[in-house]
C-alpha cells in the first residue's frame, strides 16, 4: 500500500523545508567575510593539491564493475531475507548454493589480483 510509505513523503517535505529555511536564513542574516582558508574545500583539512578535474585511473573501472555485480547480487537477497525464518534450512541451502557460485567468482577475482592496485 502506498499509504505505508507516507512517512517517506512527509520526511522529504520536512527535509526540503529544513534545507531551504536553513540556507535562506543563513544567507540573509549571516555576515560574509570570505578568506582563502574559508573558501578551501576542506577547512582545517589536508591542503588540496593538483586539479580535481584530471582524469582518474582506469583501474577504477574494475572497482566499478565489481561493485555493480555484487550490488545486483544483493537484490536477490532482499526477497529471501524477508522470509528468512519461514524458509528454514531449505532457504538457507538454496541461498548457500547461490552464494557458493558467487564465492567461486570472488576467489577467482582475488587470485587474479582483482583487489590489488598494481
Amino acid at each position, binding site marked *: *500500500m*502506498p*499509504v505505508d*510509505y*507516507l512517512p*517517506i*513523503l512527509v520526511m*522529504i517535505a520536512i527535509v526540503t523545508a529544513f534545507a531551504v529555511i536553513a540556507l535562506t536564513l543563513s544567507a540573509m542574516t549571516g555576515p560574509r567575510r570570505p578568506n582563502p582558508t574559508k573558501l578551501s574545500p576542506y577547512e582545517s583539512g589536508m591542503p588540496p593539491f593538483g586539479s580535481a*578535474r*584530471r*582524469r*582518474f*585511473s*582506469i583501474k*577504477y*573501472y*574494475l572497482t*566499478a*564493475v*565489481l*561493485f*555493480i*555485480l555484487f*550490488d*545486483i*547480487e*544483493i*537484490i*536477490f537477497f*532482499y*526477497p*529471501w*531475507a*524477508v*522470509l528468512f525464518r*519461514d*524458509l528454514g534450512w*531449505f*532457504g538457507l541451502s*538454496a541461498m548457500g*548454493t*547461490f*552464494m557458493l*557460485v*558467487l564465492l*567461486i*567468482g*570472488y576467489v*577467482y*577475482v582475488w587470485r*587474479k589480483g*582483482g583487489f590489488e592496485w598494481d
Partner: protein
Amino acid sequence: MSTPLVLTYVGFFVMAAITLGGALMAVSARNLIRAALGLIIALIGIAGIYFVLEAEFVAVVQILVYVGAISILILFAVMLTRGLMKRDLPAQNAQWIAAAFISLAMFAALLYVALSTNWRAVETQVAGDLIPKLGTELMTTYLLPFEAVSLLLLAALVGAIVIARE
C-alpha cells in the same frame, strides 16, 4: 487500510516533479558531473513513482541498481574519459537538430500509445505484502532460474576480470 486517492495523486505529482526537475538538470547542466547528479535525482523520482504505483520491489531495485550502480558507472565513465572533466564543455554539438527531431518523434509515439491504449484497472487486487510472496516464488517455483542467475553473475565477474587484464 487502502490509500486515499488524493494521497496517491499528491505522491505521484511530487515524485513526477522530482523526476522532471532532475531530468531537466541532466540535459541542461554545463558540467557533466552535475548532469549525472541530475540524472540520479530523476532516477530517485522514478523509484518514488514505483512506490506510489505499489510496485515496492521494482522501486527497491530501481534504487539499488539505477541510483546505486548505474549512476556510479556513469560517474566513473565521465571521470575515466579524457577531456570530459574540463570545466565548461559545450552542451551542444552539430547533431542537436537531429537529436531534437528524434526526441520529438519518440515523444509523439509514446504520447500516441499512452492515449490510444485502453488502460484497464486491475480487477483482482493482490492482497498483502508482495515481497514475501516474491520470495516464496523465488525459493520454490523459480528456484532453478534463481540459481542460474548466480552462474550469470559468475560469468560477468570472470568477464570483467578478463577484459580488465587485457
